[in-house]
């Protein structure tokens, strides 16, 4: 570890993306984050292009989930959590004091590590919950959104006869697709995924991965994963994080075949992690 830490200092990349990237759907600029006194993120900058999948990889505890949770202001919900820096959505800082985090979370959806459908709600209501919050109560339009969202995640045929059953009554893989449907029912612009397959079996994982690639036609997707093969299969861009810093960011092919940073290379080749 000590040698890595030393290398980390000597090989720290110069900070990139500090200027506003007008092509980006979302852009993080010099993001620092803390839990209490412990600094989790150190000046991380990264931009997410529209209609792409951006993967964030790195060993456990490198801050990748925390970083992801800064993109829809979920980080601040944890007691003692702090964040400094900017995250832009269409060029506007989502941490601006005039911005309501509730509005941001409707535009930037999230899928969690462990499938978390709402157990007290039916499958239908799980998908409809977000829309109901915005005031859409019932009716045909809601039915249509629920159907379309479930179709997009290829769950409709599996659950169309059981829409009234609890969201937790289906298998883990189906639950995770239900959670994706719940997120896209609000027609967000960006979808954040925090290790969405880590609790799933290989077949369910393959389905989610296929879905991620389809989702980028409509949304920008940011996916945190500890699975490097997954990152290389689904993503267009890959960011490698280590000890709270962004070590390298680039096109996925380049990161995996020709990493510029020695730490990235070591991680990719499995020398540590």
């Amino acid at each position: 570890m000590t040698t890595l830490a030393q290398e980390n200092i000597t090989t720290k990349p110069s900070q990139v993306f500090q200027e506003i990237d007008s092509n980006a759907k979302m852009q993080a600029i010099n993001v620092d984050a803390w839990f209490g006194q412990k600094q989790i993120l150190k000046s991380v900058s990264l931009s997410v292009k529209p209609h792409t999948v951006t993967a964030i990889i790195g060993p456990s505890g490198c801050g990748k989930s925390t970083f992801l949770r800064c993109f829809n202001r979920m980080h601040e919900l944890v007691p003692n959590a702090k964040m400094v820096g900017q995250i832009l959505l269409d060029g506007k800082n989502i941490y601006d004091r005039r911005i309501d985090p509730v509005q941001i979370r409707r535009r930037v959806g999230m899928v969690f590590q462990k499938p978390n459908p709402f157990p007290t709600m039916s499958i239908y209501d799980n998908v409809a919950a977000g829309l109901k919050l915005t005031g859409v109560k019932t009716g045909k339009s809601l039915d249509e959104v629920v159907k379309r969202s479930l179709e997009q995640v290829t769950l409709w045929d599996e659950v169309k006869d059981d829409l009234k059953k609890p969201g937790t009554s289906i298998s883990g893989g189906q639950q995770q697709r239900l959670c994706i449907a719940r997120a896209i029912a609000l027609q967000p612009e960006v979808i954040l995924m925090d290790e969405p397959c880590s609790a799933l079996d290989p077949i369910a994982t393959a389905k989610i991965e296929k879905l991620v690639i389809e989702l980028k036609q409509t949304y920008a997707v940011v996916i945190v994963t500890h699975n490097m093969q997954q990152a290389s299969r689904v993503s267009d861009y890959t960011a490698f994080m280590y000890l709270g810093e962004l070590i390298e960011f680039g096109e996925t092919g380049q990161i995996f075949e020709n990493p510029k940073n020695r730490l990235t290379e070591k991680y990719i080749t499995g020398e540590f992690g």
Partner: protein
Amino acid sequence: MRFTGDKVFKVLVAVIAASALAILIITGYTLSVGSMPVLQKFGLNFFFGQQWSPAAGREIFGLLPYILGTLATSGIALLIGVPLSLGIAIFLVEMAPRSLRVPISYLVELLAAVPSVIYGLWGLFVFRGFMVTYIETPISKYLGWIPIFSGEPGGLDIFTAGAILAIMIIPTVASISKEVISSVPNSIREGAYSIGATKWEVIKRWVISYGRSGIFGAVILGLGRAVGETMAVTMLIGNATSFSAMPTSLFNPGQTLSSLIASGILDASSPFAYSAYIGAGLALLFMSLIINVGAHFVMTRVFKVKGGAIE
């Protein structure tokens, strides 16, 4: 040797477990036997009669006013106490900073340690005046035309007794609700936040909904305490008897089953009158049992709770 030890332990534990049931059965049996004289004389009229007169030779005993009085005070206690308790629980779990959470939880639980006679004394000298001046008189002035608010507020009445019960059930309901709410998985809150729910919506539509069976259980435990609570109620309810004890207005003196027993049994002039008070105890026991069995029914049938989880 170890094998025999296990067997002995098993028998011992089974006996201890069975003793809980035995105590309930013995209590019920004793009360039934003790109240046999009045039950034989009045039959069901003992539970549904309204008159209570221990005058020797012309004794007549009916429990209806006290059964209704118990329901009325307990109902008021829940109506006032449950929202307050839920507010405390929600504040402690969802909003209070950690530095406040522990001391306030402790203080709330400390309320349970105050002996009920203290609540009675405080109620008599402080709370009663407060109720008359700031609550009952204004209500009587503007809503006096509604039958349940009719009459002259005097402070020693059903409303005051119910309000003191509300305070007394807060520690039970609030601390159990607090445990229930803190056991709601964070992943549910996060899922709700991620689709754009506000804090209020997360609490209302997700946290309470997920914890509803546990909160219902907390309310039932509070109700159990309210139904049986004796001392403070006896000191504050005004101890009406016979027809005048019918709870027609919240601002009239009333009587509950427990306060009837506490205020009357020492003056019971004959073995027959004594048996009537034991009969009141039997009615109280039945009420508590019905509430608990009913609550269990609601939990299993309405909330479909099995093994502590919502299906």
